[in-house]
């Protein structure tokens, strides 16, 4: 089997051309597809190549390497060949023309030429690759492995392109809006002019407030669960509650805040901070617990053996050793709180530019509503059709994304740094 078979390889090359070009035309949705003759030629070539290599499969084979044409092998191959010919004939006979349009089963979509044809060709190219690889390896398990793993690799490439594309398009479109004025001035005329300084300020204080609430409660809860708790029943209930809280949708937190806090504190920085803090609680408890669990028991035992009390042990030994993990959790919490919109929509924010009022220049007035980056972006999205805010919206999205990604990156770096450094 060492001999390389040129025929299936050639069809793979043709199929790759079909794959890339059809994907391109599927994405750009152009009315004219100049490549159609090449696609049809390619399909025909692939059909011939695949049939030829299927016929020649057992040519030089002895009993050991002979491929048996079971029904599971033959029928899919035949179906694929029929499919290629069908696509070719449909285009050749003019059934699929540039003015093709049809509706289907009452769906509220119209399927047009520039969608249908690239899709059919894309599907065909996948089938060609599948059959060619199977033929190349003589339907062995090795061929199956190559086939599956190349699909897996393809999905990895797809994700990377997609997610890389998301970041680069925001960077590309948003960078034009960024200027010193944009970052240091409040917005006016419904966000069409000015910048986002009050939003950055408001987001900052909301996140700070949230951390002030969630950090002590979260770390305290984790310490209790990991160091103090002897009652396994209580521990189990708390663990279940934390798991559930972690899954509660952010909009439900918003409703909770609306019913619970707004009646008491009004729409204010305080209400928003409390809601964001409570929302962050499970993240911080879970990550801190992880960190505390990784501190080996010998450290605690050593400390207690020296006569330290429980609290002294926790404060002087356990917390310092678990600090990197706990910090990572907190930083992730900061990033999460900065990116949330739904919990604060009705509890803390206003759209009109309001700088945070400060007492003595340092203490923010917590009873006033604030601006917020996410909420600002939401409003700009609502205004997109009506007012000229698109550039500002891209700029806001870029600032928000950059802030959140940088904070997350710091968390990952802190974790990786200490993971390498600490060895018990």
């Amino acid at each position, binding site marked *: 089997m060492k001999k390389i078979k040129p025929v299936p390889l050639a069809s793979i090359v043709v199929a790759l051309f079909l794959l890339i070009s059809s994907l391109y035309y599927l994405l750009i949705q152009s009315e004219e597809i100049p490549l159609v003759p090449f696609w049809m030629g390619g399909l025909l070539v692939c059909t011939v190549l695949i049939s030829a290599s299927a016929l020649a499969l057992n040519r030089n084979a002895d009993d050991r390497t002979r491929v048996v044409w079971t029904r599971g092998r033959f029928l899919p191959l035949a179906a694929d060949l029929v499919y290629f010919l069908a696509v070719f004939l449909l285009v050749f006979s003019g059934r699929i023309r540039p003015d093709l349009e049809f509706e289907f*089963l009452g769906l509220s979509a119209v399927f047009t030429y520039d969608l249908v044809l690239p899709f059919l060709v894309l599907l065909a190219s996948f089938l060609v690759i599948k059959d060619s690889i199977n033929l190349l390896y003589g339907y062995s398990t090795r061929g199956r492995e190559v086939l599956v793993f190349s699909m897996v690799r393809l999905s990895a490439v797809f994700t990377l392109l997609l997610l890389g594309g998301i970041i680069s398009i925001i960077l590309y479109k948003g960078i034009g809006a960024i200027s010193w004025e944009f970052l240091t001035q409040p917005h006016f005329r419904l966000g069409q002019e000015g910048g986002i300084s009050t939003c950055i300020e408001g987001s900052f204080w909301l996140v700070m407030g949230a951390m002030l609430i969630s950090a002590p409660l979260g770390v305290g809860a984790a310490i209790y669960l990991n160091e103090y708790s002897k009652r396994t029943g209580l521990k189990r209930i708390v663990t279940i509650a934390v798991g559930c809280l972690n*899954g509660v949708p952010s*909009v439900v937190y918003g409703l909770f805040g609306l019913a619970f806090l707004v009646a008491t504190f009004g729409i204010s920085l305080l209400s928003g901070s409390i809601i964001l803090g409570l929302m962050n609680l499970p993240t911080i408890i879970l990550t801190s617990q992880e960190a505390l669990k990784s501190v080996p028991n010998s450290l605690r035992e050593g400390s207690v053996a020296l006569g330290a009390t429980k609290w002294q042990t926790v404060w002087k030994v356990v917390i310092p050793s678990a600090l990197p993990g706990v910090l990572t959790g907190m930083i992730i919490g900061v990033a999460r709180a900065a990116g949330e919109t739904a919990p604060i929509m009705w509890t803390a924010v206003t759209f009109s530019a309001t700088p945070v009022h400060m007492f003595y220049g340092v203490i923010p007035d917590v009873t006033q509503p604030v601006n917020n980056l996410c909420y600002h972006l939401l409003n700009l999205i609502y205004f997109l059709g009506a007012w000229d805010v698109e550039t500002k919206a891209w700029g806001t999205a870029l600032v928000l994304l950059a802030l959140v990604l940088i904070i997350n990156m710091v968390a990952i770096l802190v974790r990786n740094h200490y993971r390498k450094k600490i060895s018990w």
Partner: protein
Amino acid sequence: MYQSKILMAAPKKSPLLNRRIREQIIESSFFFAAITSILVMVLIFYFLIHESFSAFMEVGIFNLLFGQKWHSAGNIFGMAPIIVGSTMVTLLALIINIFVGVPLAIYLSELAGPRIRSVLKPAIELLAGVPSIVYGFLGVLILVVYLEKSFDMLTGRSILAGSILLGIMFIPALTTICEDALRAVPKEFKEGSLALGATRWQTVRRVTLPAASSGIISAVVLNVGNIIGETMAALLVVGNVARLPSPIFDVFDQSAIFTSVIAGEMGEVPHGSMHYHALFAVGFVLLVIVTVLNISADFVRAAIKKKFGEY
């Protein structure tokens, strides 16, 4: 276990007593912190039930849950369109999510070399943190426009747009957990399989995936909860029109899901009106669904572990 017994036997009384009181105070404050999460959970349930109670009473539980029409101006509140919309969006999104997320996890844990992994893994973790409003923004400006053009739709805001966006959004979340589950499978399992002459793919399929299935399935269940509960991105792209799609499988129709109805309409309703209470009822149903999913994810994990044995 390592509680200091010396304290009890110590001769001097007063400083040690202080010390013990201090320890007690500290312990009880930690105890308070620990039960906060129970308290918050109870409070959330209490307030959602409290605020939605009158809606359930006045509209009727059955009518509210399964009524065919959600028409807030006419004070008609039936959640069937929302439930159907949510189910379709979630299922489609989940399909996209699994078909990309699980292979990516397999790639990361089985195929990628250490260098690629050390770049790819943090990149994916980073992307899990992209705020949902940013996804929504891109969805409105890119995905919706693309779908509108390619399917000649009246508006690109549709169930399809919502599910594509949500499916993509939660790829990193699924991949991270699945990859951890795949990596937790002991090396001996794989080596045993390879030593028997199985190819790497046969090993992955017959040994690694089944052994990691508890983690993968509970990750999927958790992701269902994430997708149902995602708000801002969904709000911006599903169209937020609460009516049953006709025909019922029309994924190109506009729709509304639990979160989008709440987030889209809550801003305008007068406090205390029937509409307000009905929106809380939607929130309550959502909360119950998500909580059930979360608890069942735990049970699934435990049940599968029991079946395959611990390792």
